[in-house]
């Protein structure tokens, strides 16, 4: 059944509040009753899943490079390095120089102190545009701009890890992660590329990153609850997490010819844009499930559901409508990682296929056990606000 142009996953780089690397994530998540790591005070009334302690030197050797980035870019560059290491590509000049890259990115961190000072001064000034010029020209650190630019995560990956075949950055929340994986897979299947680094990172521990959700009231407030149990609770249902996920996708023939371990084969990757204000989301999710070519029999699903009330209840209803599907809402344990959400879902799906075991329920009240070996696993990302995607990950 396998074909030389199959898309296979040969490298996984993960960082979340649970730790770093595929092994650490598997160990935490495969134990019955896994527990989330929560930070409930720093951003109260919001809870977040914070970054674990990271020794940046392990993947970003030069202090000079580290200084040029803020945490978001460091996190992505770090996770990308983990994936390259895992695939045996890091440090291989020839493979790095011919490797393509698609990064799903938002923006980097603003200088909160400068912003706060400008806002404080604005209380007593009417010439706010002049105030802006005064403060920004004198107080902004010149290179901070580069730490904020969306495409500079990819730029830093090129500089630090020498991935220089090509470099593209997709923007647009979860949809960016979906499109990045979908486009990368299409390039490999069509022979346009042999190996691609794809993924993203999200650093939620910054007030602007929370504001990006809260301007529409999307964040959950009050006591933490699992992702499926936030309907009716205070706030909008999303609990965010810092993290990153990068995958090395490779043409099967390319991977086997260099003798690499294959985690899983990436099957259909499908995406959509429901016009949600017209009530199209339910039909869109159903259509994607159909296009994903689900196999017969029991199916494990790694759901990227954010907790956002409308999107999460639509996804839950669609998954529940198929009794063969046993869903795992991993945001319960990692929080929502925006652009990194879909690559993270695909990575967790690939791990389950590779380890020939399903994850135990992450939420005993809302999820059902899965017995046996998962030969295929579904990964989903139904955007908290817009855009939808799924992929089927098959045994290698």
């Amino acid at each position: 059944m396998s074909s030389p142009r199959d898309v296979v996953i040969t490298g996984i780089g993960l960082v979340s509040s649970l730790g770093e690397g595929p092994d650490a994530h598997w160990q935490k998540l495969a134990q019955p009753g896994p527990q989330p790591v929560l930070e409930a005070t720093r951003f109260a009334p919001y809870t977040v899943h914070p970054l674990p302690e990271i020794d940046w030197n392990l993947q970003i050797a030069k202090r000079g490079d580290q200084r040029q980035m803020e945490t978001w870019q460091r996190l992505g560059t770090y996770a990308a390095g983990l994936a390259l290491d895992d695939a045996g590509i890091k440090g291989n000049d020839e493979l790095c120089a011919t490797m393509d890259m698609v990064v799903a990115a938002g923006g980097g961190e603003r200088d909160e102190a400068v912003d706060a000072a400008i806002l404080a001064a604005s209380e007593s000034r009417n010439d706010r545009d002049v105030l802006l010029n005064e403060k920004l020209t004198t107080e902004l650190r010149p290179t901070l701009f580069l730490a904020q630019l969306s495409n500079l995560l990819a730029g830093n990956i090129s500089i630090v890890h020498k991935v220089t075949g090509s470099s593209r950055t997709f923007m647009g929340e979860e949809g960016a992660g979906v499109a990045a994986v979908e486009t990368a897979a299409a390039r490999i299947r069509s022979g346009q590329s042999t190996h691609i680094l794809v993924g993203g990172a999200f650093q939620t521990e910054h007030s602007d990153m929370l504001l990006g959700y809260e301007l529409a009231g999307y964040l959950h407030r009050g006591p933490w609850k699992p992702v499926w149990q936030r309907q009716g609770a205070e706030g909008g249902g999303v609990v965010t997490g810092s993290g990153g996920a990068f995958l090395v996708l490779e043409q099967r023939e390319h991977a086997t010819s260099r003798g690499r371990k294959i985690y899983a084969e990436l099957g259909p990757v499908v995406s959509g844009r429901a016009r949600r204000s017209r009530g199209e989301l339910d039909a869109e999710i159903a259509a994607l499930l159909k296009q994903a070519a689900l196999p017969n029999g029991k199916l494990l699903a790694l759901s990227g559901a954010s907790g956002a009330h409308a999107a999460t209840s639509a996804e839950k209803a669609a998954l529940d409508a198929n009794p063969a599907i046993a869903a795992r809402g991993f945001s319960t344990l990692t929080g929502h990682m925006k652009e990194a959400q879909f690559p993270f879902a695909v990575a967790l799906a690939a791990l389950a296929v590779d380890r020939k075991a399903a994850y135990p329920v992450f939420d005993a009240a809302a999820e059902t056990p899965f017995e046996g070996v998962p030969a295929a696993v579904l990964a989903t990302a139904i955007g908290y606000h817009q855009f939808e995607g799924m992929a089927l990950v098959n045994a290698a």
Partner: protein
Amino acid sequence: MANLNDHMGRPIVAVTGIGVVTSLGVGKTDNWAALTSGKSGIHPITRFPIDQLNTRISGMVDFLPSSSKGASPLTYELAELAGLEAVTEAGLDSSDFGGPLFLASPPVELDWAERFSLYNSDKGKDDTAAERLLRVARSLKELDIFETTQFGSIADRLADRLGTRGLPITLSTACASGATAIQLGVEAIRRGECDRALSIGADGSATAEALIRFSLLSALSTHNDIPEKASKPFSRDRDGFVLAEGSGALVLESLETALARGATILGVLGGCGEKADDFHRTRSKPDASPAIAAVRAALADAGLSEDEIDHVNAHGTSTPENDKMEHLALSTVFGERIGSMPVSSNKSMIGHTLSAAGAVEAAFSLMTMRESVIPPTINYDNPDPAIVLDVVPNKKRNAEVRTVLSNSFGFGGQNTCLVMAREPV
């Protein structure tokens, strides 16, 4: 019967619609008339106060309803205008385009006007600025401000307006973004995923903060006194680029589909090439090897030799570094011939439209071939002796142009080149 596949057996990608907006005006007609008469769109900044600013000129688009409404609304309007012009010219239904959308647009942030208004709408509590913004945010009843902070929202609205299919892709490769949007469309058609695609580059993000950020990196010209003379690519006294806004859109279509429906073929998107640079966040590798590789990759993708390129639409930003590096790249690829090849920079007149530049300049490249007129590089009064190029100085030139190479290079090591042809080969 025309050959419908290229030298690699892939569907040939034709252009059947072009749209453009710059500081010179809305639409191809006005832009082309201004561009070929050597007119500059660079003018003094009036959108915000210029107190404390070292750079007080730009190529902002100041004549649209959204021009004073912030980066997201203006970027949307620019993209919509160019998209509508392109789809209409292609003879397609402008509310039901029926193919995917690839949008190059700037990263979005909450505008300062909104930040000030949210912050000052709830004074008097003992809290930090961040806490106050979050508290005010969650009580908002409208989604308008939220939408301006979502990276996918402009494309989502465009998809509604133009009836594009599927999940729209919003991308950034910095100053190469517009070219990347076109490349993604070309690749989708070549893979057989669609018969047509809409590629748009749009940038309406010339805010005070954006200007200050580039200024702090010493990237901008400070020749404020005569604004229209500030952008002077390849000149000895060039001192930086001029921040600008604009949009460009192309309807890309498989030649087979375009011919079958009787569409006018405006040109062919023959090749795309890219190569990332690992040297530095803002500077190019001194030997220009990534730019050279990108040019060569585009030529190879198009199946053309160096001798078969008639004209180069240069990235030509007017920064000391870019123009020197670009000259090195071109002279390496084209050898001695580069001295007699017309190489012009549209940015001398429209400034640097950032995320839109690659798309705007692809539009102008296609028009150059159709009209057999090469727009000039204006302000070329003081040539850089180290850069020996035929820049089509100061006056347009009538010339048969069968093929154009258009370069786009950006921060973060982004290098993307497009090869376009007048006719299917």
